[in-house]
């Protein structure tokens, strides 16, 4: 029996949706509000009305250079995403179109690496990075971000590729395309929506990644996550400035996410709903 949607229930669900959205969004909103408060105001209990000062933004930009970590974030997130796609597209192709008995196991194993607490491998990774001279380098962090997001990228692309009829790839093979041309001329253009949403999600994940970027960088390669963290030490905790730095750090990715939300939702729900 079809569910009856009355005006009343619509209103109730809309209100619930807004409440849930506000609860989720509230920490970000409060950080933005706090960024317009003075330091005493910021630590003086809960208040939603700031004095409206821009002092924190000026201080953050003048005392610490915002542009450098911003550029690092851009380079790391885009670099690691491109690198991840270079590895993930052939990997997902192999799993989707030439599966073996163990393909599902390999996929599960890849995903299981995301279930492990990152701190468990901090020490060996740190030593490896130190020995290879990768500490506080953009290359080192790009490799790290690629590795940690690769399982998700492979999974997402695999899900997309599975929706592409194998006969089309066979037709390309009959038409004289070798594996490389098959991927470049047929598979990739057909999977553009999937690749685009995977790319967007991976940029967001890489942009927001804090654990490894903070642990493996100090100044040269430090992205915005390390930039924010630097406001909690060593002079003490400066809530208002920290909030201003946070707002500046999340603003680019929030804007990107806002404009690409349709693509993202489509990408994340692909295969689940038709």
């Amino acid at each position, binding site marked *: 029996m079809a569910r009856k949607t009355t005006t009343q229930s619509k209103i109730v669900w809309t209100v619930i949706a807004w409440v849930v959205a506000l609860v989720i969004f509230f920490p970000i909103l409060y950080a933005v509000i706090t960024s317009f408060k003075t330091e005493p105001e910021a630590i003086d209990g809960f208040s939603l009305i700031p004095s409206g000062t821009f002092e924190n933004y000026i201080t953050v930009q003048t005392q610490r250079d915002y542009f450098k970590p911003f550029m690092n974030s851009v380079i790391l997130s885009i670099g690691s995403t491109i690198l991840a796609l270079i590895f993930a597209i052939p990997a997902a192709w192999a799993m989707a179109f030439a599966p073996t008995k163990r393909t599902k196991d390999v996929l599960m194993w890849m995903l299981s690496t995301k279930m492990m607490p990152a701190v468990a491998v901090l020490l060996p990774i740190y030593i490896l990075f130190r020995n290879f001279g990768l500490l506080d380098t953009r290359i080192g962090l790009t490799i790290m971000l690629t590795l940690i997001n690769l399982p998700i990228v492979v999974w997402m692309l695999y899900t997309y590729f599975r929706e592409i009829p194998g006969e089309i790839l066979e*037709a390309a093979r*009959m*038409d004289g*395309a070798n594996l490389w041309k098959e991927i470049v001329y047929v598979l990739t253009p057909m999977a553009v929506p999937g690749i685009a949403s995977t790319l967007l999600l991976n940029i967001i994940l890489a942009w927001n990644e804090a654990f490894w970027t903070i642990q493996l960088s100090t100044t040269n390669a430090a992205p915005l996550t390390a930039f924010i963290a630097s406001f909690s030490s060593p002079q003490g905790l400066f809530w208002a400035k920290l909030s201003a730095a946070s707002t500046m750090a999340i603003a680019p990715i929030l804007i990107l996410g806002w404009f690409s939300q349709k693509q993202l939702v489509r990408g994340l729900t692909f295969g689940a709903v038709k």
Partner: protein
Amino acid sequence: MGSITLKNVQKHFGEAKVIPSVDLEITDGEFVVFVGPSGSGKSTLLRLIAGLEDVSGGSITIDGKDVTEAAPAARGLAMVFQSYALYPHMSVRKNIAFPLKMAKMEQSAIDKKVADAARILNLTDYLERRPGQLSGGQRQRVAIGRAIVREPSAFLFDEPLSNLDAALRGTMRLEISDLHNQLKTTMIYVTHDQIEAMTMADKIVVLNRGNIEQVGSPMDLYNTPRNLFVAGFIGSPRMNLIEGEYAQAKNAKTAGIRPEHLTLSKESGTWKGTVSVAEHLGADTFLHLDVDGIGKMTARASGEFGAHHGDTVYLTPDETRLHRFDDKGLRIAG
């Protein structure tokens, strides 16, 4: 040129022997149809010839050259798939040009070949459209166009019409036959529809469980089916297969008589039957009958023959068109 020879070709998927062993000779310019029920191995055999599946044993030769290990594109064949398998992100023009682009042909030559193919297939007005903007029949024509431009030594068709409606299927059937007459190129056509097989083929290969049951011209198969399987599969409605006293009297385990070789009368005949269902098709009427002492039978009558559920009808078989089979299901000659 497009002669194809299969020698002891086998295909196993793990323990399952999908094609136990097939030997087949296809001569240049022939229109060969692989026909059989679902799971008979006809598509697998086509894919083995195309190179889309690796053979488990045996050899495939095209124009005298062993291509058993060759890549699909290196075999000089073109394939038309059931789902059309067009590239959805490319225009019709780019779809047709794709194999030529892969062959690194000059752009001017590509343009000419695409224009020629489009003209032959009535696609000239649709060259800038995407596959999604075309009807099923037009899509199938684009798929055929993509195959034509390669000038292959043989065309492979894998149930190309099964996604089309009945009327369009009839039209496309004629178009493909016409194309074969124009190009005179070898064509291998897979279908489960025996009407397609009978109307299009020079030679039909009847497959069952990966084995070839019979190879021959459509009328050979119709007139002299080698065994019970072919007898039951070729012809529509199916041949009536009768066991028991009547067959024994004819020195056979099973006697077969086609519905169109039964004479119907409302007064007298060899067998007396009661109509259970009458299918009036206009030109013909198919009568499904319960026949005394025999069981269920089908008879083909002219459209004017008025019979309805429950009517009594008499049937007389044309003894000269009787088929006899032994206890192994093989045809008894004579």
